[in-house]
């Protein structure tokens, strides 16, 4: 069942992510050859750290922009409605090796990326004129795609990891508007919290 859900989410991620903004993590068999289109840069870890910083620097603004855009009761009940209560959120082991941390990071960013795709889709429908929010969502999603590319390049080139199992959040397409808003707000709250931890870990 989980695997099915993950497959569906991956499909949604593929469908809704902005063209050119990245691609879902390829699922490759363990024995598959890991190759990239061109060699990874030498400062890849620095770029990953900068990307985490970039995400972290904008996470709070995105969170505020989101709940502000949703209107009441969200701005006045952020803690209640936007608490970081996200089930099945991938775990991160900050004390692990670089490879383990990169794998955990990959799973988290993949999860967040898919969820951000759902939120972007919902907000274009719910708040189509809020360009500030859309811009922040888009920029964050793009940065996540870049981070995924760098992590994958690092795992592939240095650790020869070509396959990572990932999980995705719940699908909000069938939920009502408030639930969509609430789930999105909770996810961005979680994102804000997690990205700060990741910055510290790298």
């Amino acid at each position, binding site marked *: 069942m989980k695997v099915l859900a993950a497959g569906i989410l991956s499909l949604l991620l593929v469908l809704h992510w902005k063209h050119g903004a990245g691609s879902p993590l390829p699922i490759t068999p363990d024995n598959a050859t890991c190759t990239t289109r061109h060699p990874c840069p030498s400062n890849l870890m620095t*770029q990953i750290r900068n990307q985490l910083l970039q995400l972290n620097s904008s996470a709070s603004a995105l969170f505020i922009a989101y709940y502000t855009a949703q209107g009441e009761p969200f701005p006045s009940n952020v803690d209640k409605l936007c608490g970081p209560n996200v089930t099945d959120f991938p775990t991160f082991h900050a004390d692990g090796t670089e490879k383990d941390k990169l794998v955990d990071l990959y799973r988290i960013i993949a999860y967040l990326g898919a969820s951000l795709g759902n939120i972007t889709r919902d907000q274009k429908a719910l708040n189509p004129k809020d360009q500030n929010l859309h811009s922040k969502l888009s920029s964050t999603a793009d940065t996540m795609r870049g981070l995924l*590319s760098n992590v994958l*390049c690092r795992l*592939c080139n240095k650790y020869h990891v070509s396959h990572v199992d990932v999980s995705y959040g719940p699908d909000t397409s069938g939920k009502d508007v408030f639930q969509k808003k609430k789930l999105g707000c909770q996810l961005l709250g979680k994102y804000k919290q997690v990205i700060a931890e990741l910055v510290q870990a790298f």
Partner: protein
Amino acid sequence: MTLNLRTKKIYPTGYFIKYLYKMLTLWTRIVQASFIFLATESIGVLLDPCGHISPESPVVQLGSNFTAVCVLKEKCMDNFDVNADNIFWKTNHATVPKEQYTIINRTASSVSFTDISSLNTQLTCNIYAFGQIEQNVYGITIISGLPPEKPKNLGCIVNEEKNMMCQWDPGRKTYLETNYTLKSEWATEKFADCKAKRDTPNSCTLDYSPVYFVNIEVWVEAENALGKITSDHINFDPIDKVKPNPPHNLSVRNSEELSSILKLAWINPSIKTFIGLKYNIQYRTKDASTWSQIPPEDTSSTRSSFTVQDLKPFTEYVFRIRCMKNDGKGFWSDWSEEASGITYEAKPSKEPSFWYKIEPSHTHGYRPVKLIWKTLPPFEANGKILDYEVTLTRWKSHFQNYRVNDTKLTVNLTNDRYIATLTARNLVGRSDASVLTIPACDFQAAHPVTNLKAFPKDNKLWVEWTASNESVNKYILEWCVLSDKSPCIPDWQQEDGTIHLTYLRGNLMESKCYLITVTPVYDDGPGSPESIRAYLKQAAPSKGPTVRTKKVGKNEAVLEWDQLPVDVQNGFIRNYTILYKTALGNETAVNVNSSHTEYTLSSLTSDTLYMVRMAAYTDEGGMYGPDFTFTTPKFAQGEIEAIVVPVCLGFLLTTLLGVLFCFNKRDLIKKHIWPNVPDPSKSHIAQWSPHTPPRHNFNSKDQMYSDGNFTDVSVVEIEVNDKKPLPEDLKSTDLFKKEKSSTEGHSSGIGGSSCMSSSRPSISSSDENESGQNTSSTVQYSTVVHSGYRHQVPSVQVFSRSESTQPLLDSEERPEDLQLVDNVDSGDGILPRQQYFKQNCSQPETSQDISHFERPKHVSSVSEEGFVRLKQQQISDHISQSYGSGQMKMFQEISTADDFGPGTEGEVERFETVGMETAIDEGMPKSYLPQTVRQGGYVPQ
């Protein structure tokens, strides 16, 4: 006619062609073929071409070889009776030489081209239908060009939050439609291509901002019909190519504590959240055009404010700022919007310039003094000047304070010495005091500056001087525009006592003459001013001088002109140029020093029209004045007078001399022109015989002629029968008497005088002496009847004597006149002689004694004048022959008597007197013939 049918056109079939071929003549076939072709098309029948060319749409590289093949269809070959041999090729309607053809088989012919150079070539395959009608079978277009070159110098710039634009050098022109495609990819995925627009084949802009911190690989692919080529790949992190958005909301704030600082603040672009920035901050004063920049090392880190120091108080500054990634990778942002702020006030940094003028109107014991000063420039005022405070000190303890908002103050001061001080006050404080000494009335200014110079440089009028030996507090420079139309309104400025070179800080105009005065100011008052004239920039005069003539001579002319008014000079007049010429001659130029106002043109031609024009020159050029013409006179001044006056004087002198001469010779003239004619009515003829004593006693005569020298006697032969002389004859005798004898009624002496004329002046002198005594009133006319000579017996011996008592004419009664007339008579008087002889011929009673008296003259006359001689011969042949020797003897005796003879003293005196008045040789026959005879000169035979 050739129809150039291109690929996929419809071509006619052969049926109609065949029919027409049979029906029409050869020359109409071409038109008919076209008609059929059109008719076939019009009925909408799709017809296959008779053949085709391979390749259909060739694109070849310039300079390469190309071969095309035309293949005919069997059906056409049958209808038109043609095969591959009948194929001929054309390029752009020109037939290709057959050497380039190759017959492949019965249906196919190829053509080959080497080194294609034309970009677009129309190639057609043609045949001669039925051997004669040119028919196009198929056509293609050969397109030529070049393959793309490898794009070079690929570079990208990431505009923050906007896009990424990449540029490259596309290389040579390909002449073909060439596509340039910008390709990009991450290590894990590839992005959509960016196709360059046709009008900008050297750049392409991605319409999204790339993700930072992920290396992206970019390259350009160029492709056209002749090939495809890819540029070198560049791999970069977009953050290293970013051009941030400029900082915004720049603000400027001053500090009340420090008047030399301004605080800047701004908002950084959003990219600063994950990269470090550095800045460029530039500033300038509001009116300046150039920017100053904060040292880069002071702005090399991310910040959102900055304090600028070392600014001038109360000055408005303008700022701008830009930023870029602090590691230097990437690009500077655009400049932010400018923001300005004013530093806070400070107390005036310098005392105002201070000067005074004493007004011309004086009241008793007081003098109005106008104190003037300059507003401080903003950089010295350091704030808004609220007012000025003026203090006048007459004595050490006597103060007068004035608070003035204006920049002048007029006060009535006594004739004493005053000290004036001036301070300017603003919100923060007051300036130092400017001190000025206003000397007493009797103050004598001295110690002027020396070597005062003024010259333009860098569009400014500089003034330089040498200070006197005295300690100078400051200098006052005054200047004004010199003009004939407006008064000199001076402007002024103050310089420190250490300054010896400065420029006038007024709004000076070009081409204006400035009178600049420099006055040194000493402790005890102003020194003597020194002035100089100068121009900021000279120009050619606006008008030229108007030349005129002051004096025009025959060969020279003095030109004069007025100095140009200063308003039209536009510069210092360096010299004048005078151009003059005649109507046809060359123009002559003369340069004249500017100090002159007149010039003399010399070597001019007389009586000639000259045209003169004159230019005044400054350092920058000259200007001609109006043309002036004058004509030199034909004669110089006084020349006419010099000619006329001497001529007139000469004429007058000549006339005068003539008059004098005539006056002196009036008797002679009178004798010739209107001689005294004795009045015959007052004459009488007396019988005379040699033994009859004369009726008059001529003692002197007797003495004079006592020697009997007169042997020559003019004889008038009167016919024997003519006893009574005619009145006319008597008149003639009188005339004769006027000419040749003294006019004392002695008509008998006339004939003798004629002969004596000029040859014997001594005789004349004797005659004069004699004539002075011969003033008897009786004239004796004698007629000598010629008797023989030397044994010749005269036919008639009759002696007659005329004793006329007729008085002489008026003149005859005056001995002086008579003497003059006798003298004049000496050398000429042909007519009278003629008359005389004629008269003699008709008057037998004319005296013979006259003849003897004037014998020498008579001889001379005879020898010179034929007519006279003829008459004389007729009359007195016998006489001449008879008395020739006697005549000579008598002549000599007379001469001796005249020169050495024992004449009385009174006689000598008379002679001298007469001689002074008349010519010496003019013998005056003053004696009567009978008297002469009586004296022994003549004895009738």
